[in-house]
């Protein structure tokens, strides 16, 4: 058996807080009407602070993370998927969307406690549109729910580092129209003070996430990506809540402490892996298998690094969690200028949208390779995700680019929202062949 260096392990202290926040998030959305609140629904990360500015009792459902959460409960997800298919909805459409549409069709919404409650009908659909599905998702959902009004913001301009003033203006114009639209359909006013508070929380959360994320550049890594999955959705679900920035700061400090003390996420760490896009949520045991049997740990991706998070690029090319504006900088501006600054921060510093959706996969490959270099990764595992046309964009080209740069790449097929498209045994076999080819022996015989 190969000699393996052993690092000390400890459970994450902030873990339970993430669990509590998740429960609060979904429950408060489901119960919003009990206290006279409003439900806004749309793609996660559709400029949350703008929506929050219509009242503290506005609860926003980011429906991809909801659907990912539903996918964990594979029997429940299967019911949703089948409800769609029996209505003639194509099998190959977005796996998340079908968990959502299916929930409406069977009138069931699942909470993190496994409790199933009646589907909480949205009051307003407010969404960004990047992949071809987003705004169409809520268009039909609104129809299924009996006519929920929808507002969509087109993000199909240059976003990420190539964003220009003209692109920001395009988004801003739409946002200003959207504010008027919400005022009309809800009878509520946009509250500038509330926006300032929410947006400062949001940017602080996004930035703290980046700071926490950077700690995984250390060997051993203080947190594996599987655990990061439990935290990072808050970046797009409720970053505008003060609890989220507090949680991310706490996580950051805990990771720093773990690094200082040499605490590892996986004591047997010996092979560090980049992933890509949403995984097969109901089958994260595949990652556990790799850790246990091979000491191979998944540590990062453009997905968890960039979704909702802003990065600045230093002169030497390294990525640094983006700086955020101060309260004074925000407060002194008029509404339009403030929104502009917020939009510019949200969309120009985070590349996930642009590299994934507007489809510049040359840029995405470059970012993947940058993360591999800075996070000291040894190889990549790419999910060929049948459930998401967005994250499937360019993945095979990314694969070729990573191989060309000298790293080994494993691909596996699945569907983030629908376990029926995943072959567990076949994937394990692929993993074993992959590591065997790399000469990495099993740490556990017969594992």
């Amino acid at each position, binding site marked *: 058996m190969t000699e393996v260096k052993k690092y000390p392990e400890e459970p994450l202290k902030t873990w339970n807080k993430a669990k509590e926040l998740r429960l609060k998030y979904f429950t408060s959305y489901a119960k919003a009407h009990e206290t006279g609140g409003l439900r806004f629904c749309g793609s996660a990360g559709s400029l949350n602070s703008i929506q929050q500015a219509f009242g503290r009792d506005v609860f926003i459902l980011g429906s991809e993370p909801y659907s990912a959460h539903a996918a964990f409960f594979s029997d429940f997800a299967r019911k949703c998927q089948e409800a769609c298919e029996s209505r003639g909805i194509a099998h*190959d*459409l977005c796996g998340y969307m079908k968990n959502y549409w299916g929930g409406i069709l069977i009138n069931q919404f699942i909470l993190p406690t496994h409790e199933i409650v009646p589907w909480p009908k949205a009051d307003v659909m407010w969404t960004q549109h990047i992949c071809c599905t987003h705004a169409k998702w809520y*268009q039909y959902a609104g*129809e299924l729910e009996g006519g929920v009004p*929808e507002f969509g913001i087109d993000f199909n301009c240059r976003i990420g580092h190539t964003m220009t003033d003209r692109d920001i203006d*395009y988004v801003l114009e739409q946002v200003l129209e959207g504010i008027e639209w919400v005022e009309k359909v809800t009878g509520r006013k946009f509250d500038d003070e509330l926006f300032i508070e929410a947006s400062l929380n949001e940017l602080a959360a996004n930035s703290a996430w980046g700071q926490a994320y950077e700690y995984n550049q250390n060997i051993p890594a203080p947190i594996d990506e599987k655990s990061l999955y439990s935290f990072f959705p808050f970046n797009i679900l409720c970053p505008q809540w003060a609890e989220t920035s507090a949680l991310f700061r706490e996580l950051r400090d805990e990771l720093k402490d773990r690094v200082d003390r040499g605490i590892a996420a996986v004591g047997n760490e010996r092979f560090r892996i980049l992933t890509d896009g949403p995984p097969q949520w109901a089958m994260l045991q595949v990652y556990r298998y790799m850790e246990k049997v091979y000491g191979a740990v998944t540590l990062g991706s453009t997905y968890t690094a960039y979704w909702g998070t802003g990065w600045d690029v230093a002169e030497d090319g390294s990525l640094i969690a983006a700086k955020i504006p101060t309260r004074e900088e925000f407060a002194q501006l008029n509404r339009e200028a403030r929104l502009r600054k917020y939009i510019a921060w949200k969309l120009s510093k985070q590349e996930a949208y642009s590299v994934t959706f507007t489809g*510049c996969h040359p840029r995405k490959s470059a970012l993947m390779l940058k993360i591999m270099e800075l996070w000291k990764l040894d190889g990549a595992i790419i999910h060929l995700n049948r459930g998401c046309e967005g994250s499937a964009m360019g993945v095979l080209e990314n694969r070729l680019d990573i191989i060309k740069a000298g790293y080994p790449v494993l691909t596996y097929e699945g569907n983030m929202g629908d376990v029926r498209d995943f072959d567990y045994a076949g994937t394990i076999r692929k993993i074993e062949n992959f590591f065997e080819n790399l000469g990495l022996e099993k740490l556990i015989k017969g594992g």
Partner: protein
Amino acid sequence: MSSFKNWSDNRHDYAREWKKKTGGKVLGYFCTYLPEEILYAADVLPVRIFGQHGSDIGISSAHIYDMYCPFSRSCLAEGLKGKYDYLDGVAIAQSCMHIRQAFWSWQKHLPVEYSYYIYMPHGVQSKGRYEYYRGELVEFKESLEKWLGRTISDADLDKGIDIVRKNKESMRKIWEFRKNDRPSITGLEAMEIVFSSQVTDKREHNEALEQLITELPDRKVDRETGTRLMIIGSEDDDREFTKMVEEGLSLPATFVIEDHCVGSRYFWNDFTPGEDRLASIARWYLDRPPCPSKDWPKRLRFSHIKNLIQEYKVEAAILMQQKFCDPHELDIPALKTYLDELDIPYYLIEFDVLVPAGQLKTRVEAFLETRVELV
């Protein structure tokens, strides 16, 4: 009429010949939202990149994941096989993800002198869309000027607008003849007219259209019309299938209209000229009957389909669903409900460049027999 078929059959030879004859440059484009007017203004020949029915697309499987539509994979496959080796440039006006992927892979593996990505808005109902797309066209024009080393003047733009506008107007005139009880052209001929318009020099195409317009009033159609069908679909240049339905079934049928981009969607709306040429071009493209991927938050497409059904006296619809075409699949559930409300029977066909049309024959026949009231 035979010119349209010949051009459709021999598009690569045509483009090669054109280059030889004119010494001009040819640019391949990936979606019909690309402003061809500006290319004609620059004396560049725009040709739409198509796949090839019945041709193996395995060569693209290392580049585009097979959950993307066969059309996008087939387009790239044709490029990788060298069928488009005459192109001097490629461009895309941002449309669905699948065809964007074909563009990016093309750019990476098939380098040409010039390559350009236009950020065509998806929000064709969004505030600011006109100004934004106009800005994109300004930058596109500037980049063409840089590539070609010449200025594109207002007079050039007027020329380009004129060529494209005339082409689209003529096709609209011709489509009027499809409203006849005995349509003067078949669905197959209509498809060849639009297909060839997208792969030839529109000046030459315009001459053929004008000629056809003069002939159509007296044209005798030696076939039974049968059921008046409409195609509602994803990208559809499947001539074999169209021919099979119109000529190969035991029950007569004719495609009298369609809503897709190798059909009426390509030329439907009027061009409104203005002092600011690029603004007028931007407006024309944004106001087109929308591709399903751009039809949100309001559904503008369905009322357009309804108008077509009424104007062309459609009796049944074939929903041509390119396999894995998310934009169209996303519309299907609501579209079915809509057609039910209009009392229009429909049949959904999932097609693939690799599926021979013959396999669908019995299914379409059964549909006509069981769902359509035959007179």
